[in-house]
């Protein structure tokens, strides 16, 4: 499970992690420098809860500086299975005529501002890991789909873009948005809310697409049905 980490934009203090049935866990980082912990529960159990709380100071720097890492640069320019454009995405990309804008920032801004005109926010229509192409075909989806479509378009322009999962003031679950590399900085764009990312946003993890950023993953032995629920509360102090 991922949890927030200090970045140029935010600092995180007083992190408390409580896991039922399990007191042993390890902390590790993935290749996008996301912080996560994992553990093993050997005893039979039919429920397990994770509670994380902490205090984040946000908006320290508005943008995160790009550290000259060619791995990150080239990788975030390459399409993934979920962002790979098909016919519809290619057509949509053509229609936007992004050539008329100079530089990644204005292209990203235009995509963010126009996407909600063609794509509607409707929960429960798309699958957990839906591709940008399929989401666009449906014409509606959630924040994850907005982010995938935007990333796909940017990568078609050869602009490195990453998928970000985080929390937002006033939301009941986790949120997803896009960070775009412009002039040496990562700028945050939230196409779902047509909004530039500001100090109301707390970042948890980032990656190439939603596959890299699942907030929690796990596996168990046993023939049972499973249910998972998630609640996020962000309050200003």
């Amino acid at each position, binding site marked *: 499970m991922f949890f927030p980490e200090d970045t140029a934009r935010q600092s995180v203090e007083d992190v408390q992690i409580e896991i039922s049935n399990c007191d042993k866990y390890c902390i590790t980082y993935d*290749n996008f420098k996301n912080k996560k912990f*994992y553990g093993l529960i*050997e005893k039979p159990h039919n429920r397990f809860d994770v509670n994380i709380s902490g205090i984040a100071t946000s908006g320290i720097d508005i943008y995160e500086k790009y550290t000259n890492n060619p791995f990150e640069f080239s990788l975030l320019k*390459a399409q993934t299975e979920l962002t790979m454009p098909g016919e519809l995405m290619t057509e949509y990309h053509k229609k936007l005529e992004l050539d008329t804008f100079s530089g990644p920032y204005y292209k990203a801004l235009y995509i963010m501002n126009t996407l909600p005109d063609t794509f509607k926010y409707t929960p429960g229509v798309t699958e957990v890991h839906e591709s940008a192409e399929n989401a666009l075909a449906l014409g509606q989806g959630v924040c994850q789909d907005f982010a995938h479509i935007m990333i796909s378009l940017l990568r078609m322009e050869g602009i490195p873009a990453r998928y970000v999962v985080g929390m937002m003031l006033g939301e009941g679950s986790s949120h997803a948005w896009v960070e775009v590399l412009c002039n040496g900085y990562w700028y945050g764009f939230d196409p779902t809310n047509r909004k530039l990312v500001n100090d109301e946003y707390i970042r948890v993890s980032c990656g190439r697409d939603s596959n890299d950023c699942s907030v929690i*993953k796990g596996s168990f032995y046993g023939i049972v049905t499973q249910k998972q629920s998630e609640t996020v509360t962000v309050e200003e102090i």
Partner: protein
Amino acid sequence: MNQIIKKSETINKLLSRYGVKFGIYKNGTFKEQLFPFDPIPRVIKHDEFLFLEKGLTQRVDALNCFLLDIYSNKQIVKDGIIPEEFIYSAKGFLPPCDGVVPPKKIYSHISGIDLVQSKDDNWYILEDNLRVPSGASYPMISRELQRRSAPDAFSSNSVIDNRNYADLLKEVMDYVNTGGINVILSPGRYNAAFFEHSYLAEMTGAVLTTGKDIVCENDNLYYIDYNGKKQRVGAVYRRISDEYLDPMTFNEESVIGIPHIFEAYKKGNVALLNAPGNGIADDKGIYYFVPKMIKYYLGEDAVLMNAPTYLPFYEEDMNYVLSNFDKLVIKDVAEAGGYGVIFGNSLTKEKKAEFIDLLKSQPRRFIAQEVIDFYDLDILDEKGNQVPRKADLRAFVLSNGKTKVWPSGLTRFSRDPDSFIVNSSQGGGFKDTWVLSR
């Protein structure tokens, strides 16, 4: 040799009794099939083997250098030898492996390099298999059984003893072991190569296991024995492909892997043979660059040739491919196992035009190769006549600080006279491979 031919039937019966089988899934059901053994061996002369040994060692060394480079500095990309399009968008490049250095810096411990001999007596590399190459157990056990039927055939013909494979494999596991036992991780009983997993475990003294008996705890890996006691694992010869190895890092739907094994590996607490991420080096698109890699990393010219290959990605090669389309074979780099292979002359006019459009729009997706005229090997057909068939050779190269070529290999042949496909799943058979000591 005649003695072995006479005993051919007995040897095949013994092979079946020992369970030398491979499983295939057809229409959703699992079937086990015998892997037919042909008694006429492929004979490789001593000089020829020395030549192959030199070329294979060099190739595997360069591929190991490439893997270390591509998952760290990527100097070969920075120096413009390989375009970045061939790295980051390739399926085989696994971002979680970036910056992870395996124990003793070895990525490909066991490499299976497929070669063919052409009619003009040249050897060509067909493909590199650096992920989970299988097949070594078949020549091992068939040699063992042949020795029983014809005890002096091997010494009187000066054939190098190939029964040292298990020792070589054990040496490799011990060399990279980080402290603990060696295990062979199999997907289980219904895997196509389960015979091989169990045979290699028996011969190397490693513990044969499936994912269910292994846990990762505090960044270490443990095998849970029959008493429920945990034993530290130092090296895993895993016979599970990368995507199923760790559901927490790769394919989350995998139920045959070990959750978090990648964390233990990343922190240097266990060796994985072969290292995850090797798929980038045996990718069809990267194949083209292997001779350049040998020059780049080792400063040597490649001893063994690639089949002449063209990358439509380069304009010059695209022009060549378009003007020589009918005599080439085109391969889709994303496909494997004989799929996505198109012989230029087999297409109708419309299909050809259609394909050329596709090629032009996605040049990165394809490679084109000259068709190699195989040198055929004789096999014994059902009536006992010697008939020529297409055959290839999988050479096994093991790396434990020193790179060694096993003086044997898996010679596979197609039973169908018109087929080029030697895969065991397509009904092919195998032969012993004799490497002569003088």
